[in-house]
């Protein structure tokens, strides 16, 4: 329907702008790989240590990468007041938000596709044994970050201390989804499928995504019409 069509237009515009300027991709990628290296130096983890906190470590890298990417999401509209043109177009606030969240999701997924093999090499983890489950959990976790992150990027776009404010607001609110993602990724990295008592985390992650996507889509219009 038209909302999704408008969202797609905004998403392709965002991705094209990003691929042309690479203003957030470069910094995010190098930043993520550096963190992976630092952890390797700091812990020099043995395989069973990896089984215990591999998922946590991976998600810490993704969370930092996420904050860098979503920070630029609405900031990109400020030069030349492009935000005014978008808001005055027939596209609703919700489709603007969805388009931007989609673009951030794709960028973040790109960074993850590079970090995961790097993680596998640095910590010699055969992460692809239960690949299906892993991709599912990564997608859910990444969407929760893209959704909440992009919404808060819209919320804080006009503030002075935006770079500082966004992560500070975003991280505590994302704790339930990050916690679930870390628990699930931990077991999936070691190759076993999600154990029965862990399905509760999967339900939490899915519930979190549903609640916050609806809230964001519903409140986007209020936030964007200044």
């Amino acid at each position, binding site marked *: 329907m038209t909302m999704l069509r408008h969202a797609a237009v905004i998403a392709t*515009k965002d991705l094209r702008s990003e691929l042309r300027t690479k203003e957030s991709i470069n910094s995010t990628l190098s930043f993520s790989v550096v963190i992976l290296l630092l952890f390797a130096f700091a812990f020099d983890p043995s395989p069973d240590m990896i089984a215990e906190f591999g998922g946590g470590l991976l998600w810490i890298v993704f969370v930092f990468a996420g904050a860098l990417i979503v920070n630029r999401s609405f900031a990109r509209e400020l030069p*030349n007041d492009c935000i005014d043109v978008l*808001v005055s177009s027939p596209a609703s606030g919700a489709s603007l938000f969805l388009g931007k969240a989609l673009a951030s999701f794709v960028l973040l997924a790109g960074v993850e596709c590079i970090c995961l093999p790097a993680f596998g090499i640095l910590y010699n983890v055969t992460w692809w044994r239960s690949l299906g489950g892993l991709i599912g959990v990564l997608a859910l976790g990444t969407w929760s970050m893209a959704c909440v992150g992009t919404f808060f990027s819209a919320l804080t776009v006009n503030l002075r201390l935006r770079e500082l404010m966004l992560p500070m607001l975003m991280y505590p609110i994302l704790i339930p989804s990050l916690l679930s993602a870390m628990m699930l990724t931990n077991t999936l990295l070691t190759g076993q499928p999600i154990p029965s008592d862990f399905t509760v985390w999967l339900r939490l992650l899915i519930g979190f995504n549903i609640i916050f996507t609806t809230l964001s889509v519903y409140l986007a219009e209020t936030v964007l019409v200044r």
Partner: protein
Amino acid sequence: MSGPAVAAAGVWKYFGDYPALRDVRFELGEGECLALLGRNGAGKTTLLRILAGLSGASKGGVAIDGGDVRASATRARVGWLGHSIGLYDELSARENLRTFGALYGVKAATISEWLERVNLSHVADAPVREYSRGMRQRLAVARAFLHGPRLLLLDEPFTSLDDKAIALLQGLLAAARADGATIILSTHQIREAMELASLVALLDRGKLVHYGERTTEMLNDPGYLYRTYGSAA
């Protein structure tokens, strides 16, 4: 079919406790052209932004053809040109127009036609960052007129344009006027804008102190309106 009627019914806009707009009330008929005058900070931009659905009125409201300004169908017919050009520097002219055009459902042929009309087709695929000021302004005008808007909201359109761009904009506005579109443009008392206007409104510290026909004296003597209606300060 002629452009929509625009009505403001007791619009108040507060920035905190500061009334940027105080009980602004007017009805603009279909196909009319209103010149919105006033000093800096009188509330011209605030009123235009509310009419374009960019910000909400604290009290009262505006209606375009009786409809809500945030309704998608209404906004599909509105053309907005703000102070800055509203284009992406990293994208080319064609990509910019294609992105905005897609939101209004504009076909590719119209886009190249408009690139031709503002004679930018020779640089259509270079990023806007490399354009001269005049070229950027012409592209901004093309973006505002791209989807054939029936209501044009222009915020001091003439102030930063070079001569070629002013001539282009005047031609387009005259054509739109002839075609029955409704136009509201805020201006710093520049003659070009006054010639087009059929109605004139004067805002003074948020209050609409005058709204009526544009007379010839106003055209010849820019200060006339401020002396007769504006407050001394």
